[in-house]
């Protein structure tokens, strides 16, 4: 019995240690964001807790405040471009607009297609699914160069709307496959009963079946939001003045040095929405990440 207890303790200790290792980079980043410059760039020793916390980095990057020039003595790229270059408010707004709009668009139109693929037996539905799946596996680099030209000709380059379309594009295959798996969970007898009662196919869709998979739709939307929020390559190629947070943050690395205080503050702020959302969809996370192939 004693060996049994020891085994249990060992399991707890090991599990907690491993989870701590995986949380550490985030914790270290968040800690860096409230350190004064002198503590971040200390070349003699790594400062862990021995510093006076400051929220100046958040004031500059998230609230767009001016950099107070109290920390003189730091040699890293101060004052060369002013603190305006580190104002992340525009990028936060851009990220929100793009993520919310593309989530809405991708979920809405995928919902229609997913219902048809789940309910209407038509020739070529298998082939259509394969095509959607191949879109998920398409490397973004293969479409991005022509997309830059197409967007330029349509006047969509460097616009929020253009980026919304691009993010909708990458979210459609994922949303469609997940939503189809949720529709497949609803027995087809429900549709048949509704239509015997006189509902049209479309009424049956939005008045009966869609309300039954509300939870699944919410989980799909959350995942789409996260994919758009974290997307980097398309945003980098398609925009130059509108910057989403992941792209904006890379501009804080300059040839004269990296502004680690600002980077960690905006970076930490960028992680928060994802954290809240992922804790909300824990129940459907596996299904979402495997695009409906594994049901939990």
């Amino acid at each position: 019995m004693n060996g049994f207890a020891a085994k249990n303790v060992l399991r707890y200790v090991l599990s907690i240690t491993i989870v701590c290792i995986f949380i550490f980079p985030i914790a270290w980043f968040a800690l860096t964001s409230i350190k004064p410059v002198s503590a971040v760039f200390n070349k003699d020793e790594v400062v862990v807790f021995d510093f006076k916390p400051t929220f100046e980095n958040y004031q500059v990057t998230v609230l767009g405040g001016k950099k107070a020039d109290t920390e003189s003595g730091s040699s890293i790229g101060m004052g060369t471009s002013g603190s305006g270059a580190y104002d992340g408010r525009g990028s936060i707004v851009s990220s929100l607009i793009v993520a919310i709009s593309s989530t809405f668009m991708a979920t809405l139109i995928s919902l229609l297609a997913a219902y048809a693929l789940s309910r209407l037996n038509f020739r070529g539905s298998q082939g259509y699914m394969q095509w959607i799946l191949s879109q998920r596996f398409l490397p973004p680099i293969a479409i991005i160069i022509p997309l830059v030209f197409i967007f330029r000709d349509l006047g969509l380059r460097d616009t929020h709307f253009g980026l919304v379309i691009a993010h909708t594009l990458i979210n459609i295959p994922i949303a469609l496959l997940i939503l189809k798996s949720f529709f497949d969970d609803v027995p087809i007898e429900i549709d048949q009963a509704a239509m015997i009662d006189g509902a049209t196919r479309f009424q049956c869709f939005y008045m009966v079946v869609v309300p039954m998979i509300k939870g699944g739709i919410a989980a799909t939307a959350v995942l789409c939001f996260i994919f758009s929020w974290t997307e980097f390559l398309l945003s980098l190629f398609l925009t130059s003045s509108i910057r989403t947070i992941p792209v904006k943050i890379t501009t804080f690395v300059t040839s004269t040095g990296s502004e680690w205080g600002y980077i960690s503050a905006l970076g930490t702020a960028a992680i928060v929405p994802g954290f809240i959302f992922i804790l909300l969809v824990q129940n459907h996370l596996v299904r979402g990440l495997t695009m409906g192939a594994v049901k939990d």
Partner: protein
Amino acid sequence: MKTQGSRLPRWLRSEHPFPWLFPVTSLLIVFGLYPVLYSLWLSFYKRNPATRKETFLPSHNWSKLISDDRVWDAVQVTFSYACIALILQLVLGMLIALLLDSDKKGFGILRALMTLPLVVPPAVTGMMFLLMYDSSFGVISNALYSLNLLSPDAPILGTGSTALWGVIIADVWQWTPFMVLIMLAGLRALPKEPFEAASIDGATAVQSFFHLTLPMMSKIIALAVLIRGIDLFRVYDYVKVMTDSGPGTATETLTAYAGTVYFKSANFAYASTVALATLILVLVTATLFIKIFKVRF
């Protein structure tokens, strides 16, 4: 009830798939399929850097691709990156899933915490590791200095032999939780009886893992490897943010090389060709994998 619908042509009625599929299909054709064809068309043009004129010469870029050493280096880096990261994520993911697969108090919270790295934007992940790798104040570098495993003269990302490992570790940190989650779902779905029978017959935990757990989870493992593998083959964010393909071309993956050609030499025709090579590599590898392991969605 049919009075309203019957005025419409048959393919516009809600029993026909057309109106349901039209929005998704049109968007995917215009912004997904058309660009790939556009890419192919671009790759058939030769760009003259002096006059900035393009002439139709289908063989030019493709023969250049075959004889370009940087392409083959990039293919090698891409394969090394994908294989090493995939094996590490798979093994670590399975081990951690076995460890966290418990109904005891607290394990639910640990499993939830384990998913957090998944939502960090990869560009931010790159930044986190850049900060920790920094050769003068980075916490990982300093820890390795004090263990005499690393010298300040050879920073992790600035040295050819370690740079790829530095990037891979960031990838492993971010995506091992993905494997953990999928393996946990697989473990939870396993039937209890075979394990009870095996333990009555005197099988050890290790034996029943290799003879029962692994074979019964082969389908879900194949699926996880496919999804993760494809993302690994087109890796860009970590490389771009952390090393920008450097030092030299030590961490240049195919996607990163296409990006470099696009941004630095503005040779769009050749950049498209390299990008299409990435697409071909991903498609061939994925198709082979799906055929061999019979993965089904």
